[in-house]
């Protein structure tokens, strides 16, 4: 497996075809006349669908809310509970996916034993375990609320789509460890913001015990982010130095 960026026969740019590109641009104005450039984003077809579409799906709200809230239970009605449960479902799905993301990364580390120091690989293994702990914490919290942690909430569905590119990058045997770590960095950046958001939401609902658990998870995620960010930076600079 290639571990470094190198120069080679990348054919995608026009620089590789100086003669052909002149022919391609010849008479373009006459052959493809346009009155004015219109950004594709402004599309009557798109707008109509946006206006007419309904929501992706709903949240299964628990029939009864179990008494784990310390105060403000009256505010925790079915109507509002869906917002918290949707986000808890999202975080659960993300953490569960995060376990698999780290497993895929560790698989690459295992195939390339000299790429990272042993202590770093141990750290990444520990991060994987922490993601699993976060998943379990969220699962238990949802059960305590009477919610179904196996349900895919709308935000869980969307986070799955958002993450799909990350899995594709890490899963590709042709991507380097650095490129894979960059994908994990993307995940950890999102993770940090999402935990902060969940804490704010939990506090709004006076769900203090859960907010406290989320703060502990956030501390760990901050450590993940700092470590991965540092790794990506160090490896990128190291690669540049080799040239």
């Amino acid at each position: 497996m290639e571990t470094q960026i190198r120069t080679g026969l990348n054919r995608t740019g026009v620089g590789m075809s100086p003669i052909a590109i002149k022919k391609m641009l010849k008479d373009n104005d006459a052959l493809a006349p346009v009155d004015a450039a219109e950004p594709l984003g402004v599309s009557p077809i798109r707008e109509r669908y946006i206006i007419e579409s309904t929501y992706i799906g709903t949240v299964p709200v628990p029939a009864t809310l179990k008494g784990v809230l310390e105060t403000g239970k009256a505010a925790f009605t079915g109507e509002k509970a869906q917002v918290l449960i949707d986000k808890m479902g999202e975080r659960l799905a993300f953490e569960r996916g995060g376990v698999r993301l780290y497993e895929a990364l560790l698989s690459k580390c295992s195939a390339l034993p000299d790429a990272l120091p042993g202590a770093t690989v141990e750290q990444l293994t520990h991060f994987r375990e922490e993601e699993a702990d976060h998943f379990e914490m969220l699962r238990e919290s949802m059960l305590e609320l009477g919610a179904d942690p196996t349900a895919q909430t709308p935000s869980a569905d969307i986070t799955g789509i958002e993450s799909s590119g990350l899995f594709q990058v890490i899963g590709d045997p042709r991507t380097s460890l650095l490129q894979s770590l960059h994908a994990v960095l993307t995940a950890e950046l999102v993770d940090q913001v999402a935990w902060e958001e969940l804490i704010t939401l939990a506090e709004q609902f006076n769900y203090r015990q859960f907010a406290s658990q989320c703060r502990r998870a956030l501390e760990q995620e901050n450590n993940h982010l700092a470590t991965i960010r540092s790794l990506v930076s160090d490896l990128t600079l190291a690669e540049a130095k080799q040239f």
Partner: protein
Amino acid sequence: MSFGLLENRGCPLDKQVFTWRDMVQQPISKLDDDAYTRVHIILMNGQETEAVRFSHACSRMNRELQPALAAIRRVEQHQATLVNWLIGADHSPLETTIAYEQVAIDVTAGIALREPDKYLAQVFRFGLLEDFDHLYRYSALLDRLEGKDANNILQSYTDILPGRPTVVEHRDPADDLREPYDRAVADPLSKLHALTLVAAEYQTHDYYMHFGPTFSDPLARQLYAEIASIEEQHVTQYETLIDPQETWLEKWLLHEAGEVYNYYGCMKQETNPRVRALWERFLDYELGHFHLVRELYERQERRDAAQVIPMYLPDPIPIGSQRDFIRDVLHNEVDLRADGARIVAENEESPASIRYRQELNGSGSPSSEVARGYRWSPGTELTRLVS
């Protein structure tokens, strides 16, 4: 309740029109719609793509039928688009794969339960246990690759358990060739069943061929390669159940009758009112196609179409959970193999298939590796592993 073909003329072909807006409708909700709404969509997309495929094959061999084939085929194409585009983009390829296997399992089970011919019923059950195992392998992949629970798609209607292991499903080509029904005496239900499953398996095969290479993970790529190969075997298997003595027009008539039959079945069983209205609309379209082809058939072959397909169709295929039936078949028939056209006990399997399999599995078995130690648990296997 029987559906009368002669009582319903359907919609005339020149009224079967679309706009792009009409063709690209709001997809169903992956979260809120019943799993069998998705099953109906996948099933009917398969029936439509088979209609288009058959129409092209027929066109290549029958110059005089080309205008009629082209006119009807254009509508089938747009029907296929409208139906297939009801699946939303929030279904990942692997989640859609899970849904495809649910179609294969539950529709094949519904068919096998009611198939009057004992040999055909056996062949359907034989294929059922293989698709059942595919669902298990893909569920393991979805869990271990993407961290998702296949049951979010299956909605607890279909079990996630090992079936006949995919690793032993690979057979010598000769061992996928089955005995055809006799067109003169076969129960019309048998003809409809065989055609329905050929269409479904072909569609599934094509889906895996298209999406397999879009995965970056090499184990996923190998698994899709492996299971696509089995789906090709299934197409061969079900296709050879069909009497090759049927004429082109006879086959065309059966195709249209099959589409009527399956749209009717979906309409009767559909729980989403918007989608039910679509099944009703397309039932009307297919009736229009059927009567056009019936007239062509009776004019050209000078035979009564009722000799091919009764003018009162059988009751629809029951499309729903068949858990108990499937577990029964699993218990009794998981070790069956094939020897030529026969379904046989394991120790009677064709040596050619054993040799073929040894070669193909020579560098390892992706279906075995992906599911090593896998047992489905609600919320993914992590639920079981962390507690």
